[in-house]
């Protein structure tokens, strides 16, 4: 590992916090590497199930979804940083209850307790963190978390808050397609103009980049934060349910277990249709097995309009980049949903070139995030990312019109300073409303928040001059500062976000998460114990192979060794007991024989 990615104080990770799956990667001397658990699994399903005995996160939660549909939270990325009113459509399709909480924010309600999407995401991030800690055997110093390029200010801030709640230091928010281009660019080491088409489980992004001598510059980005593979699954299950309704009648077909079975099998059917022209499904209904088949052509007819929407985004991005498709050097596909044959063929038709798919579309984003984490940790000065703000920022002016301050696709960081004054004598405060979006009217844009300027020295109307600087930082998040220009006094500014959490709420949730810290600690201890046990097994086995053991020690050591091997899969308590026995059994043996072998196997496992 490079010195920057791993040091005394820990490692820096790239994390792809996905709608359906999340994963982490780290930079190594041979390039970025995805982190896997003991079974070789890299993907942590972004699912949380609340059961009586506690919370399940990841694969366990996904498995529990069948038994606890109303207590299993998934696709939370679709709700993060959004208002209750904005996600009504979405909420109707989710089996778990979504409520409107304080300030009309989307909340998940389980057992009468409301959870913010940030808190749910934090649980997923915590799971990713413990997998990563076990894989690198070191604490995590900081993380780069990816978001869809088309995420707005509120969604970005909410993602940062989720990382904070998970006890992770968020070094940077990076756009997913940009991260993916890093993963490709680094391996390709070629300059040129690249279009990255990123269709994930719940979001779609397209970014057009120019790569030149290690500088990855985004020229334009476009997308839809509510369009993804989940929608393909939904259309497919709607089709199947439609057929069932015709065959069996409304009541039977709409029974909860039938709907659940259909929804549960839609993703698998879709995947099967990527390689086969038809797929079939058998569902148990009223004791009888009902068989159905779907063809790829049917699926394609259903998803065609959605695919066309993504192509429109590509056209807009190219137009904003002031490029024509024949000026592209490469087209790169990212996100699991780009495995859909229709997506591939439509993209090839549009761009006139076969897309690149060498890097696993599920892993590219995390790999790129790891590269960016390494850059931020100071390990890489060759590469530089220049990203853009996806949506314009503006202020409310007279008549409910938005006056644009910062145009979309401006390279970030970027800033604008506007002057404000008072409208009545001795007014000491001014309210400023900030909107994000491309439309003219405030009703068509998203209100990001209100800023209240206060502490303006009393003076006749129009006399005070307050210069307010709107700065969009490298995370794509807005920061506002204000100064009274006549007196040079720093005016104070309070931010009331329309979406997401206030600073107080983040603090309160941090306090609450301290109770989880105990669980985390126990989990980490388990991981460490398992690592230690595995190292001991390898070390002891190696020492025995060398034949350095006194003959009378061979049997007891072998026995203890086998006991540890057996209990590796057991609960931590019994593993701890067998590890202690093995320690005892090997205690009499020349320390250096074992320890040198252990050390050797430990250093190997660092690879």
């Amino acid at each position: 590992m490079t010195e920057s990615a791993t040091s005394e104080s820990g490692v820096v990770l790239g994390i792809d916090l996905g709608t359906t799956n999340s994963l982490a990667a780290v930079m190594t001397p041979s390039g970025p590497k995805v982190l896997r658990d003991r079974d070789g699994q890299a993907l942590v399903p972004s699912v949380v199930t609340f059961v009586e005995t506690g919370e399940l996160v990841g694969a366990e939660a996904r498995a529990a979804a069948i038994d606890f549909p109303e207590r299993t939270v998934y696709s939370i990325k679709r709700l993060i940083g959004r208002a209750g009113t904005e996600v009504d459509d979405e909420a109707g399709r989710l089996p778990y209850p979504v409520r409107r909480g304080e300030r009309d924010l989307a909340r998940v309600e389980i057992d009468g307790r409301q959870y913010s999407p940030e808190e749910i995401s934090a649980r997923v991030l915590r799971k990713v963190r413990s997998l990563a800690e076990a894989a690198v055997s070191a604490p995590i110093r900081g993380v780069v978390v990816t978001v869809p390029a088309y995420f707005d200010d509120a969604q970005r801030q909410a993602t940062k808050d989720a990382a904070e709640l998970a006890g992770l230091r968020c070094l940077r928010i990076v756009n997913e397609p940009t991260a993916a281009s890093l993963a490709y660019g680094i391996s390709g080491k070629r300059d040129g103009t690249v279009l990255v088409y990123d269709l994930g489980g719940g979001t779609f992004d397209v970014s057009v980049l120019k790569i030149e001598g290690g500088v990855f510059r985004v020229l334009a980005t476009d997308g839809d934060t509510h369009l993804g593979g989940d929608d393909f699954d939904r259309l497919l299950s709607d089709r199947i349910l439609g057929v069932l309704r015709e065959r069996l009648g409304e009541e039977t077909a709409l029974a909860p277990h039938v709907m659940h079975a259909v929804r549960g099998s839609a993703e698998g059917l879709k995947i099967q249709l990527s390689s086969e022209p038809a797929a079939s499904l058998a569902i148990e209904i009223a004791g009888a097995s009902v068989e159905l088949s779907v063809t790829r052509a049917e699926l394609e007819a259903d998803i065609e309009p959605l695919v066309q929407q993504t192509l429109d985004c590509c056209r807009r991005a190219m137009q904003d980049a002031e490029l024509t498709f024949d000026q592209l050097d490469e087209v790169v596909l990212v996100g699991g949903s780009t495995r859909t044959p229709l997506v591939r063929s439509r993209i090839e038709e549009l761009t006139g070139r076969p897309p690149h798919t060498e890097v696993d579309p599920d892993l590219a984003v995390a790999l790129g995030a790891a590269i960016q984490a390494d850059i931020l940790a100071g390990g890489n000065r060759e590469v530089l990312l220049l990203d853009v703000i996806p949506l314009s920022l503006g202020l409310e002016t007279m008549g409910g019109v938005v006056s644009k301050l910062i145009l979309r696709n401006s390279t970030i960081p970027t800033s604008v300073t506007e002057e404000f004054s008072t409208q009545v004598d001795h007014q000491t405060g001014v309210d400023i409303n900030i909107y994000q979006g491309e439309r003219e009217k405030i009703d068509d844009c998203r209100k990001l928040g209100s800023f209240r300027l206060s502490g303006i020295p009393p003076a006749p109307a129009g006399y005070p001059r307050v210069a307010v600087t709107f700065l969009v930082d490298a995370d794509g998040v807005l920061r506002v500062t204000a100064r009274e220009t006549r007196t040079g006094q720093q005016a104070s500014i309070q931010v009331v976000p329309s979406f997401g959490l206030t600073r107080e709420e983040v603090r309160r949730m941090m306090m609450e998460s301290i109770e989880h810290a105990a669980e985390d600690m126990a989990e980490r201890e388990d991981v460490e114990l398992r690592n230690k046990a595995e190292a001991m097994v390898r070390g002891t086995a190696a020492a025995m192979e060398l034949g350095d053991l006194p003959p009378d020690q061979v049997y007891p050591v072998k026995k203890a060794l086998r006991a540890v091997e057996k209990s590796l899969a057991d609960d931590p308590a019994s593993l701890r007991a067998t590890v202690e026995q093995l320690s005892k059994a090997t205690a009499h043996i020349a320390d250096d024989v074992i320890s040198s072998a252990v050390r050797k196997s430990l250093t190997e496992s660092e690879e």
Partner: protein
Amino acid sequence: MDLDPGELERRYLALSRECHPDHQPTESPQEQQLVLERAAKLNDSYRRLKDPWSRATALLNLSEPGILDRTKQLSPTFLMEAMEISEAALVARGAEADDLRNRLERSIAASLEDITSKIGARDWAAAATALHESRYYRKALADLQANQ
């Protein structure tokens, strides 16, 4: 005004390597804010210089502050012509629209050449007037394109 876009881009990228917060690890929030502001200024300046129209605006503001305000009053003859063109841009269809587009593109190109040479000759007032006038052509062209 006569600026090699390739050279501008090359220098911008080189400066970005120096200024971008990613390559400037800082701990204190104050330092971080300064680094951010510097990088933002660099990006904003590049954006302003890249586009010839905003480059001309910036050059005029720097060379002769207030000149753009003082030259806002355009000649009645020009305004009459401009009004006719902008009305035509809103209704033109087919071949008529193509003709108008060609005409506007020629006017805009000529306007830019004119502004460039006047700035070169340090004739700020004439350059500022030409810049104001070019806005009508550019607006008409945008309207025309939006209507097709």
